[in-house]
């Protein structure tokens, strides 16, 4: 009785606590999203802002609502856009796989390290964030350039006579992508691996599983959620990445972020840029929603078994 009265008293406060992030998301995520969605159904116009209005209002009365589907139609019919989306997904996918292959052993090593050393190692993973992202990409340019540090060094010790082509190709693109996104893979993996009960591995060994078998049957399945979380943290921003492909990628690297930039700044075509963005968001949201539903169903399934 007292408890329920207490709960009722707490409720307004609880609502206020939830309202803050809710309001934040509403204001800075949902509202901008609908503005972009609105613009994607407009036509390019020589005006300020440079697009037509969807609503025709005269004397305070709504006269007509005109939705223009031409942008979406163009995206779906022009093969270049499809190729760009696919190319973006491909780059994001391989970046994610490489981050996972590289990040898992690192996260594992940190999680199993002496607790005193663990924080230092984690700090080292996060250390690059202390420098601006853009500066770090520029630093890579300085390293990979034909007259950059690496080529200069290799030529000075006589290992090569011609500068290696390290820059403005897929190699430099993936190298810098993996470099930039690796911490986002390591941190969620670490947080899952570190809380694993080590006695489970002892139990596996006791029951006859060698170290490799124990890793594959116990550690790996138990870190599944960390793998999913880390992969999403890398994959989602990687799809829309603009700076890295622009600065270190090859000229023929098709990335959706680059197309967006071109439409917006070079062609001044806001509606087209918006439509490109909307499709990218849908492309990312649909698999996330499906995955989420699968996970919920799996949890429920556990409950019913």
């Amino acid at each position, binding site marked *: 009785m007292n408890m329920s009265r207490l709960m009722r008293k707490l409720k307004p406060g609880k609502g206020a606590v939830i309202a803050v992030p809710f309001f934040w998301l509403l204001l800075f995520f949902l509202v901008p999203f609908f503005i972009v969605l609105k613009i994607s159904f407009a036509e390019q116009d020589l005006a300020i802002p440079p697009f037509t209005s969807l609503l025709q209002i005269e004397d305070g009365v709504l006269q007509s609502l005109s939705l223009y589907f031409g942008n979406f139609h163009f995206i779906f019919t022009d093969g270049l856009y499809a190729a760009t989306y696919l190319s973006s997904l491909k780059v994001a996918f391989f970046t994610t796989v490489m981050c996972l292959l590289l990040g898992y052993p690192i996260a594992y090593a940190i999680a199993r390290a002496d607790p005193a050393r663990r924080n230092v190692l984690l700090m080292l993973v996060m250390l690059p964030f202390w420098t601006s992202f853009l500066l770090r990409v520029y630093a890579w340019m300085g390293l990979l350039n034909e007259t950059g540090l690496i080529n200069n060094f290799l030529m000075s010790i006589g290992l090569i006579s011609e500068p290696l082509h390290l820059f403005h190709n897929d190699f430099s693109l993936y190298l810098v992508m993996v470099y930039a996104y690796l911490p986002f893979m390591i941190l969620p993996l670490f947080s899952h691996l570190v809380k694993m*009960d080590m*006695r*489970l591995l*002892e*139990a*596996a*060994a*006791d*029951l*006859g*599983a*060698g170290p490799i*078998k124990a890793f594959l*049957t*116990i550690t790996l*399945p*138990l870190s599944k959620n960390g793998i999913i979380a880390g992969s999403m943290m890398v994959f989602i921003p990687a799809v829309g990445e603009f700076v890295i492909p622009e600065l270190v990628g090859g000229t023929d690297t098709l990335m959706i972020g680059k197309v967006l930039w071109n439409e917006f700044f070079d062609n001044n075509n806001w509606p087209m840029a918006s439509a490109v963005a909307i499709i990218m968001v849908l492309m990312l949201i649909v698999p996330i929603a499906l995955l989420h539903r699968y996970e919920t169903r799996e949890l429920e399934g*556990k*409950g019913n*078994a």
Partner: protein
Amino acid sequence: MVETVKQAAASAQGAPYLRIANVVKKFGDTTAVDGVDLDIRKNEIFALLGSSGCGKSTLLRMLAGMERPTSGKIILDGEDITALAPYDRPINMMFQSYALFPHMSVADNIAFGLKQDKMPKGEIDARVAEMLDLVQMRKYANRKPYQLSGGQQQRVALARSLAKRPKLLLLDEPLGALDKKLRQQTQLELVNTLEQVGVTCIMVTHDQEEAMTMATRIGIMSEGQLLQIGSPAEIYDYPNCRFTAEFIGDTNMFAGPVVVDEPDSVEIDAPELGSRIHIDHGITGPKGMQVWASIRPEDVHLDVVPQPAGPNVARGQVHDIAYLGSFSVYHVKLASGKVVKSMVAANHWHENSITPPTWGDTVYVSWRPDMPVVLTR
């Protein structure tokens, strides 16, 4: 064939099934296990009993292969297993708090060890079913561990550790995670299961009741050493040192020198008692040697009427009464300040038409001369 003959010959000579020979384990400067020698017979349930930090868990982990002894040997069924990795040993362990694999069903947990042995699928299924029946968990085969109660998890853990038919089963605080009521019920259930399977078993526990109920023999450990090995009754009735006497059950301990040393009796001068302790059998030791006399509370008589002064008798005041239903424990404070505990059956006073003594009353404690156990260390 030769092996079998050899083993048969060995067991005919009464060689132990498991031999722990002078095993030492050091962690840096601390010695966790300090020269333990122990022989275990086949199909025996042996309990290592001691308080936390006494080295019993380290000894168990060395048997499981999770720790390597600093020196010494472990020989199981004629084979030196001291250096074998845990996954190469014919030994399975039931972990404290069970360590069930959370992402696997009950059946998969039990099958895990069998799969490591590359057993054919049909045989695995049959063995898993057999194990589920053994612990009466067949209905729960497809559940995940977190959907089970503590008692059910314990049974799954037991089934998993028995599934490979290990030569030696290790139990680490097997019932420590259960509440008291469930623990008492499970103790006998567990012993029945172990006897049904006929497995040699070493358990580690800090709970003397658990050890006394379940084990055929008990080893008392303290500071890395085995102080005494014996059946529960031997250890309770004939402790060989003060630690054992005080660790197992409750006791009244008096220190003092031997003042009379006859072949068939001794007397100890116990300043705390205010009189001598007379014992009706001889001991091996010179006169004047410092010894301890241990008298169990159930062997201490309590009288309200004055008793003639003499050995084995002392006067005191009732300091505290612990009422425990079928009996009460009276704490009697002697003139020296020493508190003597006396266990009195609930019907004792009524049957003798005596008003039970209460706080502050003067009472007399006494015991028969055959009751004290003399300890030299």
